[in-house]
């Protein structure tokens, strides 16, 4: 599980730079050593909405600040999962001066991503002749999802181009916005995949080595999530209630995306072959729309646009559970970075007693998923022994990177950050939220010092 760099001198402290990215995550960890140079790890760099007070070039300013702190070289980049609010900062531009270009220029020695992003695995798993098993099934499913979204976005663009009137324009635009930029993140994905030499990429899962031990002497790094398909199935089997149901759902889930992906391939083929004639290339097509169909056709198109939007949103929700969960240990300090992991991702960890014992001693917790209600499992929270209503030196420290008012609603208990969680964090931990930066006027970041 844990990879320890034997004999290496442990760091004496760390500075955590929590950047103001509005709704998103961006953390730079600077580890300080007595006799060696500082080591720098960037965990996520993305935003889906900046506070109104932030300048337009906020992301570039952040990238420049990171470059300045790490002195031109990053030791590692961790992408918790492929969501825009965690990776938009890795986007490059044509002029090669985008924030992603700046980070690229820092030549990270290691890039850590969830196993579901492994481009090699994807290639194998989509081979139709091989019956995918175990992890490959999940990868195939995720790859299918990616293909499906590409397809959906392409279809939305075709629909929009046919000029269907204003009835469906908004839905189509949302498909493109949410699908293209929110999920596909093509430029950022490409940038991350080629940011480090081929052998310096780690695609990690629960219990796997992160590779971070090699760049952070004296720090024990454990990967707690995401689980592989096999691991989560094992957990599901142990559930008291009807394990078959989970299998069925898993199966349906896969079938759904598989169908979507096969569609994508089919459409690409048929578009190339016969100019998007669909399944009946030889059928007689009515060039002039008869009057009886004129009411119906724009409505059918609008229904389709909404359908496409629905597909994009389903996938968006699933992505959170591919988050990398990292536990960093130095002496008695334990720092927990769970990305946006939700309960399904946490489940395996929650069932392992020895792990839970280690997690009980967490001294710093990056609050999961911007403080949403499903990302800090109750049993994990209840187990934290450093929580305390009284101020004291060993009290648990917590940071949430978030922006209220973007998602959910208090009336429904879905507001992000969730009020009850924030109250608990305030009452029982030394709590910092990036929203405080906005309250002070525009501030780029908050630094928090740790001594080990």
């Amino acid at each position, binding site marked *: 599980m844990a990879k320890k760099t034997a004999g290496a001198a442990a760091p004496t402290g760390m500075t955590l730079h929590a950047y103001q990215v509005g709704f998103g995550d961006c953390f730079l960890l600077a580890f300080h050593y007595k006799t060696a140079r500082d080591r720098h790890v960037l965990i996520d760099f993305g935003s889906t909405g900046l506070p109104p007070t932030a300048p337009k070039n906020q992301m570039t300013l952040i990238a420049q600040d990171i470059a300045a702190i790490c002195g031109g070289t990053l030791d590692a980049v961790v992408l918790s999962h492929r969501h825009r609010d965690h990776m938009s900062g890795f986007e490059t531009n044509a002029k090669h001066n985008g924030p992603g270009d700046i980070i690229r220029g820092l030549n990270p020695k290691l890039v850590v991503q969830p196993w579901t992003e492994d481009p090699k695995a994807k290639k194998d798993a989509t081979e139709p002749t091989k019956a995918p098993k175990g992890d490959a099934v999940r990868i195939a499913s995720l790859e299918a999802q990616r293909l499906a979204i590409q397809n959906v976005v392409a279809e939305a663009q*075709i*629909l929009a181009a*046919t000029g269907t009137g204003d009835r469906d324009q908004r839905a189509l635009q949302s498909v493109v916005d949410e699908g293209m930029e929110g999920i596909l993140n093509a430029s950022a994905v490409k940038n991350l995949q080629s940011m480090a030499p081929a052998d310096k990429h780690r695609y990690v899962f629960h219990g796997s080595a992160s590779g971070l031990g090699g760049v952070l002497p004296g720090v024990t790094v454990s990967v707690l999530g995401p689980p592989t398909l096999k691991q989560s199935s094992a957990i599901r089997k142990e559930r008291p209630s*009807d394990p*078959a*149901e989970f299998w069925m*759902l*898993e199966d*349906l*889930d896969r*079938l*759904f*995306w*598989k*169908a*979507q992906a*096969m*569609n994508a*391939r*089919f*459409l690409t083929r048929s578009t190339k072959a016969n100019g*998007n*004639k*669909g*399944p*009946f290339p030889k*059928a*007689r*097509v*009515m060039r002039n*729309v008869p009057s*009886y*169909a004129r009411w*119906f*056709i724009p*409505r*059918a*198109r*609008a*229904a*389709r646009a909404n*359908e496409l939007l*629905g*597909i994009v949103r*389903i996938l968006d929700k699933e992505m959170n559970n591919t988050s990398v969960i990292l536990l960093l240990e130095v002496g008695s300090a334990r720092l927990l970075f769970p990305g946006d992991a*939700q*309960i399904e991702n946490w489940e395996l960890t929650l069932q392992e007693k020895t792990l839970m014992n280690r997690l009980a001693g967490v001294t710093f917790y990056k609050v999961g998923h911007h403080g949403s*209600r*499903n990302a*800090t*499992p*109750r*049993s994990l929270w209840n187990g934290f022994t450093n929580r305390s209503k009284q101020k004291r030196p060993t009290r648990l420290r917590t940071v949430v990177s978030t922006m209220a008012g973007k998602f*959910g*609603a*208090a*009336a*429904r*208990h879905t507001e992000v950050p969730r009020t009850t969680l924030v109250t*608990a964090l305030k009452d029982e931990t030394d709590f910092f939220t990036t929203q405080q930066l906005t309250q002070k006027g525009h501030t780029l970041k908050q630094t928090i010092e740790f001594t080990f």
Partner: protein
Amino acid sequence: MAQTTARTRRLTVVAQDPAVCTEQGRILCVPAEIPAEALDPGPWGHRVQVIDFDATTNQLLAPLDAGAYLDRAGNLIDPFDKASDRTILTDPQFHAQNVYATVTQTLARFERSLGRRVNWGFPGHQLRVAPHAFADANAFYAPNERALFFGYFTGQHNRTIFTCLSHDVVTHETTHALLDGIRTRFTDPSSPDQAAFHEGFADCVALLSVFAQREVVEKALQISAREKNLRMTKVQRGDQPLIPVDALTRDSLAESVLLGLADEMGRELSAVRGSALRRSVELEASKTILDTPEFTEPHRRGEVLVAAVMQSFLEVWATRLDSLRRYGSFLNVNRVAEEGCAAADYLLTMLIRSLDYTPPVHLQFGDFLSAVLTADVEVRDDDGPYQYRASLLSRFAAFGIRPASPGTTQQPGVWARSSVVETTNERSHFDALQHDPDEVFAFVWENREALKFSKDAYTRVLSVRPCVRVGPDGFVLRETVAEVMQRIDVTAGELASLGVKRPRGMTAPTPVTLNGGSTLIFDEYGRLKFEIHNDILDKKRQSARLQYLFDSGYFDGDTAAFRPFAEMHRRRSVSAAVPHQGW
């Protein structure tokens, strides 16, 4: 064009879906018997219009000419009689016929059971059907578009799978449109039961329609015999194919016929249709199942309803087989299949008829069960040798569903007869009471106290429908069914004054709508026979309903859980996480 006086016609349709084949490996097709009508190209009849528009390719495919269905001499033609498998799979005009005939057949089935015309749930008479609406593994009823949309997608070996060729999928979607017409308020945000009912009921109708086709049941029995290695065709007496009795118990029918057919059905389509049939066998009966978080999800909850109905079907079928002539320890397969179809067909009639006996708003499974029982008792006093009602009662009870009304010793679970003695019946006009909403409203107004209608609420008669039902004894039952709805708009802060509990966390200015009302059933003399009442001021029910809606996010604009059928169907095919350990 020459006229024909024929009342019905036959059009070839796919019996279940293209994966279900004959012994010879051909796609199992059947002639669907449907009401004859003057068709325009589409096919386009008086209630169903097929428009083959594909939003993905942005193409409108041409329909067959009207002459294809009616020759100059006035003879009705089935243009796809004895069509090849290739034609069935690749000819979009056959697909158009397939959806036209299956939708029309389902509509006719409802009208026959209810003894009246059934309206769609939207303004207008004609339901549009797009057989190749988009490239996607989905199919749904869209009330705003007044349409059924059927997608197509690529399956294994690059074969295109057309959802419009699946009898159960088409029937399921048509049922949504019909149910929406019969009870428009069943799509309202209400209880988990109501959210689940549309799905569950549509699945019940679709599956029972499949089993009401003899060809399909025979096929399922063949599969079951093959699975059990019985080599059925070898076991014969004279020219009668036989099947051993021990393969025909309720449990073995479940295992073999239901699961057998579930396996046979196009597997790739389960992304569209879900697994209701499979789960109706595999779902273990438990009285607390509906209390578990997992079965609060509408599509999962609907499966419980399907399981209860399909298990009743098997029980009745097995009972019906007791009276068949035995050949040693064997039965004639054809007769076994006939009994299966008869059981499915009768249950289907019971379920459809029950809709008239459901409350107009806030349906719960217990209400539905009472409605099914009452509808049947009204045409048939005695439960008969096959015990349909007893089976339903026991199977529903096994899943913790009890009838909403206790009923009587002889007729458990039925709605109580109206005890309202109308003092002002003299002022009612019998004839108008059978069709005129204003007349029914006048009746309600005169008797509003006795009927327990709130005086403060807005009251509206949603529908008045005279209907004629024929019992198994040949006698005719005439009734008039009227739906009356009440509505009160308040703020959450005012709920306390009505005795309704405000969900914790709901702010006082939040606007809240309370619904209630009655289904009034008048007998053939215009007397009130039943009033199936949902009191708008039922504190317990309204408090529970608001709490559920609040928890489900209805009040903060995230109405995903209450979106129309497209969303529901997509949710059916991808797992929805049940949050736990949350904040």
